């Protein structure tokens, strides 16, 4: 059935046919009889990467296939979401090797976006932890790993579904003693200070900073750095230590409908940021918290995306090389002058580049939300120019609007990626609104 679909940013909205499957046979049959197919998971990418003429929903393809509890190896179908995986593995003493800021994404989406987490600088992105996977390519169902069909493997990691439909993924987990995180929050009064704090705390497994990007002058870039480690049994409180792998159940809040545009303006955003910054009354706070608020602070508010109103929003996430701190300053200044920034922006540092067109590269990454409004896209084009000038790039999973040239000029392996995809997707069967917009021209 055709319907209007949009992803998490509620922009763009496209009229697509969406079908689902729960058995491999149904998927094969559909893909054999349709062109212009793209996989779609839980719709948590922000833009048009999983939209297209025929969106194939993997959500019913959600079975756990194997779990080696001794060695921490997990295998599942691509439509299983991270929250369901956590429900299974955490009580048995395991954790996801890499997790993004929401647990409501599918494992197929995690691979296609090659998601990164707060531990990228120490443990890389999701693809570093995949043992093997199966992909339904234009040539049929193929198993690949870093050793077997490595070209297909690396083009599928971060490949935005363009090599085909990921069906099953086998990956390694991380051993944990408790479901808690020992965290440390440090207030930084400006950008220089937070970047220095990142450097001083880089031995921590997890780190990120909330940055208030509307500040000027001395407090330009004021932020709260948050670093953490999985807590050991003796680090959790006596009550939690009785069942260290279980979390107390919590109620969820939801935003029931799209808020009107005026709710979010320069004033409310500034106010929110001021309160957020002020809530930490001491410069350094150390405590032990359940893993959920540490990794997924926004998941506690269902449908927070509706806060931006019915026109939706775009997320702008870029990365700049480590030695381009002046670029970060230039971009932040532009955003601060314009005053269109989001509630809070997330700043973190990345380790080295992972694979063909994965987003992370060694450097600083900043992610902000911008509600869609008149003049936004030309403004973002200006930001793009700065990102390009300083040798950076944008995250495809959050992109809904970048121009063709920006992508091809900023991803050094893009051409090689296209060549590999051409061999696996020779007729251009797998394509999305995004791949059309960026003009991949497979066929």
């Amino acid at each position, binding site marked *: *059935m055709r319907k209007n679909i949009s992803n998490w940013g509620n922009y763009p909205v496209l009229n697509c046919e969406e079908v689902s*499957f*729960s*058995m*491999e*046979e149904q998927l094969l049959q559909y893909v054999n009889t349709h062109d212009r197919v793209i996989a779609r998971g839980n719709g948590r990418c922000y833009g048009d990467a999983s939209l297209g003429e025929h969106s194939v929903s993997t959500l*019913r393809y*959600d*079975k*756990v296939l194997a779990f080696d509890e001794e060695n921490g190896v997990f295998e599942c179908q691509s439509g299983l979401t991270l929250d369901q995986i956590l429900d299974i593995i955490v009580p048995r003493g395991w954790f996801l090797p890499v997790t993004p800021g929401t647990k409501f994404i599918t494992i197929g989406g995690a691979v296609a976006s090659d998601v990164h987490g707060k531990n990228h600088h120490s443990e890389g992105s999701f693809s570093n932890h995949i043992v093997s996977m199966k992909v339904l390519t234009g040539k049929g169902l193929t198993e690949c790993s870093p050793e077997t069909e490595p070209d297909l493997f690396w083009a599928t990691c971060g490949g935005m579904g363009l090599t085909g439909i990921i069906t099953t993924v086998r990956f390694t987990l991380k051993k944990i003693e408790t479901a808690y995180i020992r965290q440390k929050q440090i207030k930084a009064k400006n950008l220089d200070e937070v970047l220095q704090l990142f450097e001083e705390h880089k031995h921590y497994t997890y780190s990120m900073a909330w940055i208030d990007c509307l500040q000027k002058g001395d407090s330009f870039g004021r932020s709260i750095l948050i670093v953490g480690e999985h807590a050991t049994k003796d680090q959790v409180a006596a009550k939690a230590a009785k069942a260290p792998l279980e979390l107390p159940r919590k109620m969820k809040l939801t935003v029931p409908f799209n808020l009107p545009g005026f709710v979010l303006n320069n004033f409310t955003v500034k106010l929110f940021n001021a309160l957020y910054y002020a809530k930490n009354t001491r410069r350094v706070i150390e405590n032990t918290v359940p893993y959920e608020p540490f990794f997924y602070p926004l998941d506690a508010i269902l449908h927070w995306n509706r806060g931006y109103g019915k026109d939706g929003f775009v997320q702008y996430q870029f990365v700049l090389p480590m030695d381009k701190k002046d670029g970060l300053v230039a971009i932040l200044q532009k955003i601060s002058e314009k005053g269109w920034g989001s509630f809070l922006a997330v700043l973190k540092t990345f380790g080295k580049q992972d694979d063909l067109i994965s987003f992370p590269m060694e450097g600083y990454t900043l992610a902000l939300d911008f509600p869609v409004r008149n003049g936004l896209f030309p403004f973002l084009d200006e930001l793009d120019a700065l990102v390009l000038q300083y040798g950076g790039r944008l995250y495809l999973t959050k992109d809904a609007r970048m121009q063709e040239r920006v992508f091809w000029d900023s991803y050094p392996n893009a051409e090689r990626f296209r060549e590999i995809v051409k061999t696996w997707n020779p007729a251009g069967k797998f394509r999305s609104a995004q791949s059309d917009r960026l003009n991949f021209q497979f066929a």
Partner: protein
Amino acid sequence: MPTVLILGAGSDIAVALARRYAAAGFTLQLAGRNPEQLRPLEQDLRIRHRIAATVHAFDALDFASHAGFYRTLPAPPDVVLCVFGYLGSQEKGQENWQEASRILHTNFTGAVSILNVVAEDMAARGKGTIIGISSVAGDRGRMSNYLYGSAKAGFTTYLSGLRNRLWHSGVHVMTVEPGFVATQMTEHLALPALLTAQPDEVAKDIFKAAERKKNVLYTKWFWRYIMMIIKNVPEPIFKKKKL
């Protein structure tokens, strides 16, 4: 641990039911036309819920095989869920007997054939629960799906008779009448969101109602009242509507 047999285990409602019963610690017997396709579900249930599960070949239309299928199950089930069904195409079925017969025989004859076998066994053991998934489409015939609807009507009547008979042997029979459910079977239909249930909700309702030994379950609950109204529209008016 009690055992539940799911007939037609590949459907979305069946998967949700399997997960619900597995969460309650039941041993699962999953039956479907192509057992190989049920292996992932079997693994999923074992790993998530640490329960025992087996898969079995079962074809609703192969009536002659039903007694043998039931005999070879590893254990006699305590609960039998008859979930399989075939919506088919009303338009195609009007002109094409093959389609019409597949709709009628899957939803009615096939269900009766296997449940007769189950009923004999449970009556002899003097215990058990049979749960049949019928449909609100069986409550009144409509031009858009009366082949499916009439087969489900027959099934509903069969279940009520069976309930009457087996009560005397200590066996409980529950009829489930789901309204719109968002499944692969209905994916191509434009269903009104407010009236449409998710498979999980339906499974939760069924599990709870079966524990309480309800006789007839409408899910979601308001379908009982919607169908009460629909059943009471006088025929001279009803027949003029294009429903």
